[in-house]
């Protein structure tokens, strides 16, 4: 593995993270106070404005893990390995948010916290694989070997993402099909759609800001 450590890592907490937190706060206030209730599901439907953006951000973070893992295997650049680590940790956070908010929607709407349904199972497997990625990092002492093993696991974990997204079409499932990310026009009124878009953008910015902060923490540790 080649040596590389940026000379002057930036601060872990900076304007970008504060901007991301402010954006998420704006999205939450809009969802809570300025978006109408859905008549059939009631207040529980508003969980949708954090559940789906968290899922898309988890895909983003774990997609970055896969791309950086490929980059590491190709170039053997430790910066790619550090970025993959940062993205995996943040990906696990967002996947945890998905797995916590989902059952809180399911209980009042489906009448059960959990169903052994393919979308839910695959998301749980993705959580376990991401957790395994982080556990593996702590289990291998040799840096080059650790980075190589983790890169392979990071790529394999990300292969689940398209299956998770398409699982509602490929299998009989209770999970709702995509309302916006599907070929037809969005099946949401404009006020709800704008709240959802704001949530997706805010969570994506938060995801990038957290990965950036975690990456800088790792650089600071290695410097």
């Amino acid at each position: 593995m080649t040596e590389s450590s940026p000379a002057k890592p930036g601060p872990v907490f900076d304007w970008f993270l504060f901007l991301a937190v402010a954006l998420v706060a704006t999205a939450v206030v809009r969802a809570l106070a300025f978006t109408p209730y859905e008549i059939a599901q009631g207040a529980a439907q508003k969980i949708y404005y954090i559940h789906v953006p968290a899922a898309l951000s988890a895909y983003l973070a774990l997609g970055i893990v896969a791309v950086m893992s490929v980059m590491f295997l190709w170039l053997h650049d430790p910066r790619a390995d550090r970025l993959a680590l940062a993205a995996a940790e943040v990906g696990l956070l967002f996947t945890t948010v998905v797995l916590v908010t989902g059952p809180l929607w399911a209980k009042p709407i489906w009448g059960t916290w959990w169903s052994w349904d393919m979308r839910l199972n695959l998301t749980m497997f993705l959580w376990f694989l991401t957790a395994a990625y982080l556990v593996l990092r702590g289990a291998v002492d040799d840096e080059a070997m650790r980075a190589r093993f983790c890169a392979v696991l990071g790529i394999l974990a990300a292969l689940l993402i398209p299956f998770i997204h398409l699982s509602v079409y490929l299998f009989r499932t209770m999970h709702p099909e995509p309302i916006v990310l599907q070929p037809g026009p969005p099946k949401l009124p404009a006020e709800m759609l704008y709240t959802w878009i704001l949530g997706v953008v805010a969570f994506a910015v938060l995801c990038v800001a957290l990965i950036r902060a975690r990456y800088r923490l790792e650089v600071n540790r290695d410097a």
Partner: protein
Amino acid sequence: MPDNRAYFIAAYVLAGVLFGGYIASLWWRSRK
């Protein structure tokens, strides 16, 4: 309209705790 505000509040609070906890962990780990 069903009254299920408790679930919706719990979801937002728990998500806030998870994100806040992670940011706090970054701060904790970044202390010299």
